């Protein structure tokens, strides 16, 4: 029986069957894990019965009733919880090839820090910039960002802390900013910080970085909390599958941070073998559309953007109905 998520009783679980509302809303909510097939638990309602808090993909998310009404669920009978696994899954072995690292051998490494809000990104930044030469705190037009630089193993590392985002769509000024920064400033490497206790949702942003075809190193942050949950991750294997090196860190205590930056240097020196360009496999029809859009995109003149590199990302964005990416073309 279909009921609205807002009507789900406290403590009850339900499987998402349908998400109504406009494209923008569905995208926003999908980034946080509300997609069909996923199990949600209603945790509580705020004092005035609105908004409600829901447990989805390991995170507590607050939704107003007007929004929760747009999500339809079937109640899961007690004792049959399936740990929120998405029923349909596709093999993760995407096609891949060697990734070209921009200008190897350079002595200044520009690193862009991205990650979900609350993933400990700022802790990584603060710890790394402890030996800071300079920390600048920009509060730009709509977003604020910090910058620090330091030296390691003969390299000058410049670290830019970008605003925390759940995805790289153009839903908020922050997301747009991060996206533009990555594509126009072309940092040498993206440092993607993940909250290890919410891997599935945090990796959603990573899939967009994969689409973007930029070199990435992942910091598996809050690894101590993750281990305390008695969870175990074969992160080397995961890294090989995604073509991205994974380094466990506990940024709050400064653990794993130097290993993280050593890994970044290795990637720049092209000594890291797991680095590959992986294509996330989409549905056949979508792949066909992506390919034909990519062909056309690569012929387009764009002043500031490396179109060849980002063509797959652009094609996916276009198919998602996000036409703002076209603003970069003349």
């Amino acid at each position, binding site marked *: 029986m279909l009921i609205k998520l807002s009507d789900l009783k406290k403590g009850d679980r339900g499987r998402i069957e349908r998400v109504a509302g406009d494209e923008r809303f569905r995208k926003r909510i999908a980034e946080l894990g509300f997609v069909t097939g996923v199990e949600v638990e209603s945790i509580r309602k705020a004092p005035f019965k609105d908004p409600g808090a829901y447990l989805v993909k390991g995170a507590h998310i607050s939704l*107003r009733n007007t929004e929760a009404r747009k999500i339809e669920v079937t109640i899961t009978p007690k004792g049959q919880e399936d740990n929120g696994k998405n029923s349909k899954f596709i093999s993760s072995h995407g096609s891949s090839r060697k990734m070209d690292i921009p200008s190897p051998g350079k002595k200044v490494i520009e690193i862009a820090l991205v990650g979900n809000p609350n993933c400990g990104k700022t802790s990584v930044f603060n710890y790394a910039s402890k030996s800071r030469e300079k920390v600048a705190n920009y509060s730009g037009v709509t977003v604020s960002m910090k910058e620090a630089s330091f030296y390691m193993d003969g390299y000058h590392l410049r670290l830019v802390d970008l605003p925390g985002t759940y995805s790289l769509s153009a839903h908020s000024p922050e997301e747009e900013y991060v996206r533009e920064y990555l594509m126009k400033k072309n940092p040498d490497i993206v440092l993607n910080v993940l909250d290890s206790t919410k891997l599935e949702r945090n990796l959603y942003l990573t899939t967009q970085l994969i689409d973007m075809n930029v070199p990435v190193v992942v910091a598996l942050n809050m690894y101590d909390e993750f281990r305390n949950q008695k969870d175990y991750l074969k992160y080397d294997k995961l890294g090989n599958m995604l073509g991205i090196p994974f380094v466990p860190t506990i940024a709050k205590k400064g653990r794993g941070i130097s290993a993280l930056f050593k890994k970044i240097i290795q990637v720049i020196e092209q000594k890291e073998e797991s680095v590959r360009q992986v294509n996330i496999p989409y549905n056949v029809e979508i792949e066909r559309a992506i390919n034909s859009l990519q062909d056309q995109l690569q012929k387009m003149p764009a002043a500031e953007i490396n179109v060849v590199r980002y063509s797959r990302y652009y094609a996916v964005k276009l198919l998602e109905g996000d036409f703002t990416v076209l603003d970069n073309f003349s």
Partner: protein
Amino acid sequence: MELEEKARTSIAHIDNLFTESTSDLITDDKYGFIEGALIETLVQGGQKKHDISRRIDNVLTHNVFSLPLFFSIILLVFYFTFSIGGYPVAWLESLFDLANGGLARLLPEGIFRDLVTQGIIPGVGAVAVFLPNIIILFLFISFLEDTGYMARTAFIVDRIMHRAGLHGKSFIPLLIGFGCNVPAIMATRTIEDRRNRLLTMSIIPFVSCSARLPVYVLFISAFFSSWKPLVLFSLYLTGIIMAWLTAILFGKLLFNKTETPFVMELPPYRLPTPKAIFQHMWFKTWYFIKKMGGVILFASVIIWALGYFPTGIEYSGKITEHEEVIPDGNVPVREPVQIENSYIGRLGKWIHPIFKPLGFDWKMSVSILTGLPAKEIIVSTLGVLYQADDGFEAKGNAFKGSEEEIFKDRSMLRAFSFMIFTLLYFPCIGTLAVMRKESGSLRWTLLTLGYTTLVAWITSFLIFQGGSIFV
């Protein structure tokens, strides 16, 4: 555009083939990819961290207790900010006085000495002495943010704030505004959505900050001795009502209807390390100092110069007379007649017709101008102009005694009208500077400036003229 056409055709084609939209299919495939990868690599032990957070939330976001708990925490924060902060504030005040007295004796007589001892030190000092308060406030905010409690406060008050078209996250910045509007505007950074952030910023100036309190105390103790708490309460309430109405008005007029969905993560509770809290506090404090330092210095010098020049012949004699006080350790005091003839005095008199319908005399008009950098300066200007001794009581009485004939019977009304104007008009220069920086929009800042002053004028006009009918 050709490419957009092509993309739209593909989307329509795929939408037709499947029950789900193209965009949803892409999202599903992304999650499917992640899931496939995790099935092969992740072994879950099943002990979720969230269980502990959930138990804490059973209390902190409880249906009945959460709001009283929240307000107790906030009251405690304010109590510590102003009670403990009071000591270093007093030390700083005496330090500034000492420095000023010392410099007054050391520096050779002349414009430069007056600039330093009458302009820069009192101007910068008036704001700098609040630094201990600000640091303590930032310390608490950083702690509450880092533990994850701030997100819960947004969760429990969202329903109330939503009625004014605001977001639960707007609540904390507005509360901080009662302490000082500048950190309040900085606190709006936690609001991700630009619409809500601008809206919150533009109503913060109506929240009565602590710098306005001296003005209220002065007038209330002089004119409303038997109504003290009620009058004070009505002032704060007026500010809150104005903020509320403005949020609704701006929300309807200046933004389109598409509100971003209120989706907010409630992060698990964490005990932050002291180092992290101090680091966050320090980032905020340093930003505050950087933003405020230059602006306050600049504004103090300008206002000082306007009150100092021109140094005419007829009253320059009086200044030298007055400087005999200096050996006692006092700072040279500006003569009322000097202010009256200065540029700012002339300006105050010149714009007096604008304020006359509100019941203000020219002295009050002048003090409104000198209060632009910081509203507590209004009190000291009135003191100088009415030649009052120190202390609120004395200033108030001096003010009372010098009323012009026509206002005699409406002194309470006039005082109330002036307090309302002080509450609502032109947020201080520091607030505007930070608003300009944080909103990134000069137009928005100017709009807020003009709007608040207009609202102040209209409200005071209605109060004075409306009240005059009954008195």
